[in-house]
């Protein structure tokens, strides 16, 4: 059953752009990017029990890195995107090392502080980041090897979808691996995991950096997609929104957060046409989910509880 659903979704993802009108394709591309972003956070929140309130940090950093690469160097689009992800993973190492010194609320506050710090830097460092206006006119440089197809709207969709699918496949394997199951143990009872001989901090740093790589990848996909990068990409509101996507979609399921991202975008695009207060609906749904259905939408659909 599960395999059939996945196959169906895969086919749909491949076929969609050929049947959809342009503006829907853009929305779908955005969903792929946000889905990747949300899924990367799920590794932290759903699988390791680390509530990060600053995940926008990696999104923004990936976006700015890719934007700067595309604006100031001649590298092609795929290289810039990969570069953005790699740079984000690199900066995540010291971040992870510092943040994992704390647990619980202190950890959440530390991640928030880092994100706000990057926000402040992006806001003020006019010469490099364009200050409050951000970086505009980010090009989709084709580069050699005839990769120009990716720069078109349809091509970009396939690029984003491809990244999401590849990341999903990797994450599926990762959470079932030795390291992945250890993360679940740490989530359940860190003290016991440590008593068994696992070093929890090392694992936390590992998953943090991995999550940063994927989140940075999402951000790096975003900058050329939207054509700009702004400090808002670091702001804690975005961190909160992606957390909402993960929780509403269903933490600890990988598929749930992607669903959550779709839900978020659907609310934003469709509900905002009908009523002015889509954010209110989102907030209420979010609170309701946390209170009454912590397994999220995906969990409800599959009848499985991930408390």
């Amino acid at each position, binding site marked *: 059953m599960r395999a059939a659903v996945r196959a169906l979704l895969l086919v749909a993802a491949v076929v969609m752009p050929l049947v959809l009108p342009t503006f829907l394709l853009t929305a779908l591309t955005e969903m792929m990017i946000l889905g990747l972003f949300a899924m990367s956070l799920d590794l932290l929140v759903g699988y390791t029990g680390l509530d990060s309130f600053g995940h926008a940090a990696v999104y923004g950093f990936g976006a700015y890195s890719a934007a700067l690469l595309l604006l100031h160097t001649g590298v092609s689009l795929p290289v810039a995107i990969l570069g953005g992800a790699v740079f984000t993973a690199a900066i995540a190492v010291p971040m992870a090392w510092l943040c994992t010194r704390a647990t619980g609320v202190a950890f959440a506050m530390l991640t928030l502080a880092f994100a706000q710090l990057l926000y402040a830097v992006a806001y003020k460092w006019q010469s490099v980041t364009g200050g409050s206006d951000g970086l505009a006119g980010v090009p989709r440089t084709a580069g050699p090897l005839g990769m120009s197809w990716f720069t078109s709207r349809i091509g970009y969709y396939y690029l984003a979808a491809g990244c999401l699918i590849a990341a999903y496949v990797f994450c599926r394997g990762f959470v079932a691996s030795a390291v992945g199951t250890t993360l*679940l143990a740490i989530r359940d009872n860190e003290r016991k995991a440590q008593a068994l001989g696992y070093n929890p901090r090392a694992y936390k740093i590992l998953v943090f950096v991995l999550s940063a790589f994927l989140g940075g990848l999402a951000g790096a996909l975003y900058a050329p997609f939207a054509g700009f990068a702004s400090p808002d990409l670091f702001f804690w509101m975005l961190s909160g929104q992606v957390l909402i996507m993960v929780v509403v979609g269903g933490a600890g399921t990988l598929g749930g957060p992607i669903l959550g991202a779709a839900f978020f975008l659907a609310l934003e695009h469709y509900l905002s046409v009908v009523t002015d207060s889509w954010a209110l609906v989102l907030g209420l749904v979010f609170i309701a989910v946390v209170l009454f259905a912590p397994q999220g939408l995906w969990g409800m659909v599959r009848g499985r509880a991930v408390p």
Partner: protein
Amino acid sequence: MAAPYLECEGLSRHFGALAALDGVTMRVESGEIRALIGPNGAGKSTLFNVITGVLAPTAGVVRFKGERLSGLPPHEVCARGLSRTFQITALFSRLSALENVRLAAQARSAQRWRILPGGPATHQTLREGRQWLERLGLSALADTPAGLLSHGDQRLLEVAMALAQRPEVLLLDEPTQGLSVEETARTVDILRALLSGGGLTVLLVEHDMEVVFSLAQHITVLNRGRVIADGATEAVRQDPRVQEAYLGGLA
């Protein structure tokens, strides 16, 4: 080279002005089954916590095979060959019983750093997990989430996890606590069968004197953070100081 043994020398642990441990000196020989008894608050669990690295001593050292153990974090103490169970059951409640034991077995293998699934190492640890579940009589519960097991089965699962690590020293913190008479008997039988093979050094904290007398060869008695008696089971049983402080009219 001396056979592996565990040594506490002048071990003290203070919490503010309170001395939970006060100059505890204890030597456990290789292959020994040593019971640690004493009234509530005597410092038994604190001693376990200091030995396994959960707490650092405020004075004194713990040595294992001649090497200093005190001051190391818990995961490194475990890597040196000491496994423990906890007084308040500590399991991965959302994972299945089999997964719990498998994780315990996996912890000491280098394969635990694989980030891709499957592989021969996982099959190996799965096999070991099933074996241990069987030896402890828990095979039927392999796929049950650990949080849903009965109290007795949970405590047995913890023992299985500790054993799955193939430790050199096993520290059991009140393994029969909260168990019914029948469950206690079953646990003792299992433990006796497992320990009769030798090669395992055991430190056992227990309140149930019958369990102590049926399993332990040596007893160390703690009271208020100090060792008040230490020796072969029969000798300690007869010691008037111990009888007065702890055994009351039981011995």
